[in-house]
């Protein structure tokens, strides 16, 4: 790797992860406990965004496939919802254990199909996936204690679940684990750029002898997703993705009686006060925006720095950014991997051009060269950003941070809240009463104080305002899958 102005003149030896996840050339749909070809015979390719190599060919589910998947989930629901809760629990425990056993393979597959660094898929995504199943397994026979006064909570029925490409298997776990724990059955559609771990999960369901039809996986793009959420025999829709699509789903669901939870976009503020521990805060900013190439709905993409420490923060941020290693996602030393797809890279680049056109100053301390093939974006931040700039208002979903300054806590709060989104927020200060006062005034579903981007199966996650509604994780996440 080339040296930069701020990194020392020594090189890392490549440290590639070498486990072969054994990807088959062709992947079919998982319906009714079997892998079957799409009735429409249409397929699409899924590629490795770091190399643009085709990894496999997947079936694109059409209306007949979606019908079959929903019907299979409906049939399975009759039995699954009446399966003894402690027995249901044991299936989920089995799944959790099998995920742990196959963790390395799943991590490699996730990294190859999605572009995220192996360090993250191995240390964050997959462990959280296993924890999510293990945690929810235990809920199966405890639902009557979850909601005081509601002694006989009932499952909803068939859940249509549509998930994004940024945390493919983790989003699957967030959707499937609570649904199954509550006695529902599911039809899940992974994103078209990252279908492989969901199909590998289907294999795990088979291995664990999960009854046929309890989990169905249909692959495809937006059309398949639309067919699924608009299917008349679906009782609940859980969607994670963009606010625009979320609104379309909410409109299409109006008057149908379907239950809905939506986890949508964000433009989350990260606020640093002058009395914060600045070095810790810098690490938090890095974690907040460059984690997973910034493909994080709760990314701390708007940084508000108290005026007196702005020069110090910018200088330290530049230095720290320069040390991030961008490149081969399978290399264990890589910090920032590949952008998930060509279209997403084009979107990010469009925002970057717009940001500098509007007068923001680009900071991109990385001078290292990027691989020739694949989709890459050097992580960067922009200063001199005004609140009305596009890069300060719209979700970029890339490794791009907008830096702004403020003078008083009131100004920080009002500017942080001046957005249609309300997913997450971060606050950095060593003053206890101030941190909780600011936290209570921020419009967000998750607030990280002196930390950022922490996740746990027991911790409810979700947004306010146009970032959607409903929570995922912990006791509160069960609410979206039960009638109480």
């Amino acid at each position, binding site marked *: 790797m080339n040296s930069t102005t701020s990194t020392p003149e020594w090189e890392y030896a490549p440290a590639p992860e070498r486990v072969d996840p054994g990807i088959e050339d062709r992947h079919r749909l998982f319906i009714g406990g079997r892998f079957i070809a799409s009735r429409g015979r249409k397929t699409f390719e899924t590629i490795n965004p770091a190399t643009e190599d085709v990894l496999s060919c997947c079936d694109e589910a059409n209306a007949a496939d979606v019908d079959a998947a929903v019907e299979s989930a409906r049939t399975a629901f009759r039995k699954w919802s009446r399966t003894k809760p402690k027995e249901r629990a044991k299936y989920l425990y089995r799944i959790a254990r099998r995920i742990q056993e196959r963790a390395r393979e799943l991590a490699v597959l996730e990294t190859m199909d999605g572009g995220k660094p192996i360090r993250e898929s191995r240390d964050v995504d997959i462990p959280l996936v296993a924890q999510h199943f293990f945690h929810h397994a235990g809920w199966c026979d405890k639902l009557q204690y979850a909601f005081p006064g509601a002694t006989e909570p009932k499952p909803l029925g068939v859940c249509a679940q549509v998930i994004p490409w940024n945390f493919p298997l983790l989003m699957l776990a967030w959707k499937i684990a609570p649904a199954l724990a509550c006695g529902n059955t599911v039809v899940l559609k992974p994103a078209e750029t990252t279908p492989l771990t969901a199909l590998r999960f289907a294999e795990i369901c088979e291995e664990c002898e999960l009854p046929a039809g309890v989990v169905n996986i249909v692959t495809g793009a937006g059309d398949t997703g639309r067919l699924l959420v608009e299917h008349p025999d679906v009782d609940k829709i859980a969607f994670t993705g963009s606010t625009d699509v979320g609104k379309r789903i909410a409109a299409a669901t*109006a*008057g149908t009686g379907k239950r809905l939870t939506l986890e949508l976009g964000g433009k989350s503020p990260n606020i640093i006060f002058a009395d914060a521990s600045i070095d810790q805060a810098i690490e938090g900013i890095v974690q907040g925006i460059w984690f997973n190439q910034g493909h994080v709905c709760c990314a701390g993409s708007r940084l508000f720095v108290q005026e007196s420490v702005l020069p110090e923060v910018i200088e330290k941020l530049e230095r720290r950014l320069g040390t991030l290693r961008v490149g081969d996602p399978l290399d264990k030393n890589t910090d920032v991997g590949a952008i998930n797809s060509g279209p997403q890279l084009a979107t990010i680049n469009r925002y970057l051009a717009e940001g500098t056109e509007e007068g923001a100053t680009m900071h991109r301390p990385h001078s290292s060269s990027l691989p020739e093939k694949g989709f890459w974006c050097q992580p960067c931040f922009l200063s001199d950003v005004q609140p009305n700039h596009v890069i300060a208002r719209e979700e970029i979903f890339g490794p791009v941070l907008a830096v702004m300054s403020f003078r008083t806590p009131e100004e920080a709060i009002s500017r942080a809240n001046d957005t249609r989104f309300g997913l997450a927020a971060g606050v950095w200060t060593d003053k206890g009463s101030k941190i909780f006062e600011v936290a209570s005034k921020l419009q967000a579903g998750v607030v990280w104080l002196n930390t950022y981007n922490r996740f*746990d199966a027991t911790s409810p996650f979700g947004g306010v305002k146009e970032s959607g509604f409903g929570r995922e994780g912990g006791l509160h996440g069960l609410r979206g899958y039960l009638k109480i």
Partner: protein
Amino acid sequence: MPRLEVLKTWKLFIGGAFPRTESGRTMILWGTEDRVVAHCCQGSRKDLRNTVEIARKALPGWWKRDAYNRGQILYRLAEMAEGRTAELVDAIRSIPDADTGRGPTAAQARKEIACAVDRLVSFAGWCDKFPQVVGSRNPVNGPYHDFTMPEPTGVCGVIAPNAPSFLGLVTHLAPILAGGNVAIAMASETNPLPAMVFAEICATSDVPGGVVNILTGYRREMLPEFADHRDIDAIGGAAETVEERRILELGAADNMKRVRLETVGDVDYFDDDSRHSPWTIEPFTEMKTIWHPSGS
């Protein structure tokens, strides 16, 4: 010569005041034998817009009030409603049912009021309890203090059912207020008079101006306005028809309003067990999860 009765001019209740509708329109409420009982305001889109602005300003004050204080104010509402039982009985009975041609009996009206007053008392008590019932401390991996607590969703539309005209309004309003939200209620269309008596009860209790607002008018005109208004955060209450529900949910999609509507036929307004549940408050709250490191 008999004394001529002084009739009341029925108005809207916005920001603690009683203005007429800006539209200058009224709707006639008919009693038995084609007798005019009242001219009520036919509220408009502009009335709703004005009300939302006022309610939005009232939100922070109500939200940040201590739960103990909110509880006392709700209890005060119950006290005042109890004291105005006679007036409420008259208001409830004044409009006959369209099908039967008869209004509720005095006993029925009294039962409805008693139930509504008890409901206010119940939710007065919930103010400082439901956050403990629905919140949590989350046992996460790692050295973090992680907890989840409910916060008010914000400015809530409350679509009251046509009947029971008084109890229906109170049933849907009380949990929303207990949760720290401010409300813009759409009164029963067939008999808005008890709702407007309730407005006077609010005005003479300690409810801060703008926390409870009540509009009267036609549902078919006003519901789409509630649905489309971009600064309303949630809609509660009860839909009379599937079409009403569809209209409200469709408009709400544009700004991700939380639509937590019940359906009139499904709600047993007299059932304390189901209606006094904290799970009637929770739909009008947003769970906020807060993380903080706790050691290394």
